[in-house]
């Protein structure tokens, strides 16, 4: 009898912990796939040889890194360059119809956040990987997760509950990541430095 009581307790505890650690975070986010699959690795490989700035250029004011528009992709992709089904679909549905892809932006900040790439790249000399991680070498675009309550992308908001996948959950676009880096470098970190 005694053993069974302990077993029940252990099962209950595991269920509660499992619910708290995995089920709640899982239920918190709405998952959706990108409209088109895209391989950064192919584009940054030696065969193609593009760098981040070739497609993600700063605007005049230095503000946005920016997701490339169709006009950036179209010159190379008027005809299929490879054999993938996604590329074929991209050409047929977007390039041929001159329709912009509605990319889901992992790094989209909340509306009360002010962020400009210019000071971080030009003055601080940060590399893209510092905040965006190894995104530039990934084979496919991962599932986009959006917080159901705040509607912010998972990459920019909140602590991660379990830091088991630092490369994925700690790429450095959350407020405490910004704050930590500012603190370490002795840069101002008062509210209005980043908020508007």
């Amino acid at each position: 009898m005694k053993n069974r009581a302990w077993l029940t307790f252990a099962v209950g505890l595991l269920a509660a912990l499992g619910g708290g650690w995995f089920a709640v975070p899982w239920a918190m986010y709405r998952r959706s796939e990108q409209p088109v699959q895209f391989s950064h690795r192919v584009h940054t490989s030696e065969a193609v040889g593009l760098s981040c700035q070739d497609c993600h250029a700063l605007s005049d004011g230095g503000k946005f890194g920016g997701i490339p528009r169709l006009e950036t992709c179209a010159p190379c992709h008027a005809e299929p360059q490879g054999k993938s089904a996604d590329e074929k679909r991209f050409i047929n549905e977007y390039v041929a119809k001159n329709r912009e892809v509605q990319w889901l932006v992992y790094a989209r900040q909340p509306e009360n956040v002010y962020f400009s790439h210019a000071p971080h790249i030009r003055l601080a000399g940060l590399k893209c990987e510092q905040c965006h991680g190894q995104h530039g070498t990934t084979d496919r675009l991962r599932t986009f997760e959006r917080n159901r309550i705040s509607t912010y992308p998972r990459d920019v908001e909140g602590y991660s509950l379990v830091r088991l996948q630092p490369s994925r959950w700690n790429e450095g676009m959350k407020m405490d990541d910004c704050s930590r880096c500012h603190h370490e470098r002795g840069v101002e970190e008062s509210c209005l430095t980043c908020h508007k």
Partner: protein
Amino acid sequence: MNTAHKPKARYGMVIDLDRCNGCGGCAAACAVENNVPPAAPKASDRTGLTWMRIYRAENGRSFPENRTAFFPISCQHCGAHTPCVSVCPQNAVDINPETGVVSQIPPRCLGCRYCMTACPFHARYFNWSDPEWPRDMENALNPDVSVRMRGVVEKCNFCHSRWQAAVAKAAANGKREIDPADYVPACVEACPTEAIAFGNLDDPRSEVSRQSRAPNAFRLLAKLGTDPKVYYRSDRDWVRRMGDTDVAYESEASRG
């Protein structure tokens, strides 16, 4: 809490009251720049939102000696013992160490309104309802300023988004110092009589610094020792005396 640290720059204003004719252009430009919604249907002088508010002061004489002056009053950006900073239980108010601007972070505000009680200048406003714009006017909102929700306090921040834009522009050119011409608040830009000077008070060559040291310059409620960064100027003695009385309770020219 010690609020008397020294910022890198101290942005401030000098408003020449002998030039101000009370037109309200500054208040209108401010509202447009900072996404301040039109007054709610039931809003009163007490419950409206007016980051820049114009008060009318009379010299109390009868005709023909009667005279009027207009006091445009925004947040005075107190540099010492800043009352709102020391009372905020949420740390939602601080002094930006780069600009000396007293900030207000609405998402962090819990709406207790202690800061409004503490502010000697009545320069803080509470959102009694969610903002509402007439149809299609939402398309004209300024994307550089976040919209505030019901239940939080807001106030002037010297058009801080313009400072952020100026910093980004300088950085894009590889510079750490901003061009002073790039950072001008909306009220300063809009004033038709050029009554408002704006800039770094710590830069002795700046126009604002020169004017703040003029013999006819004064600050509101200087007796409180909060070191406001908004100065006023007037050659009229009775107007200067107003600076240390409770101007906010005088009759008002503008409604919220």
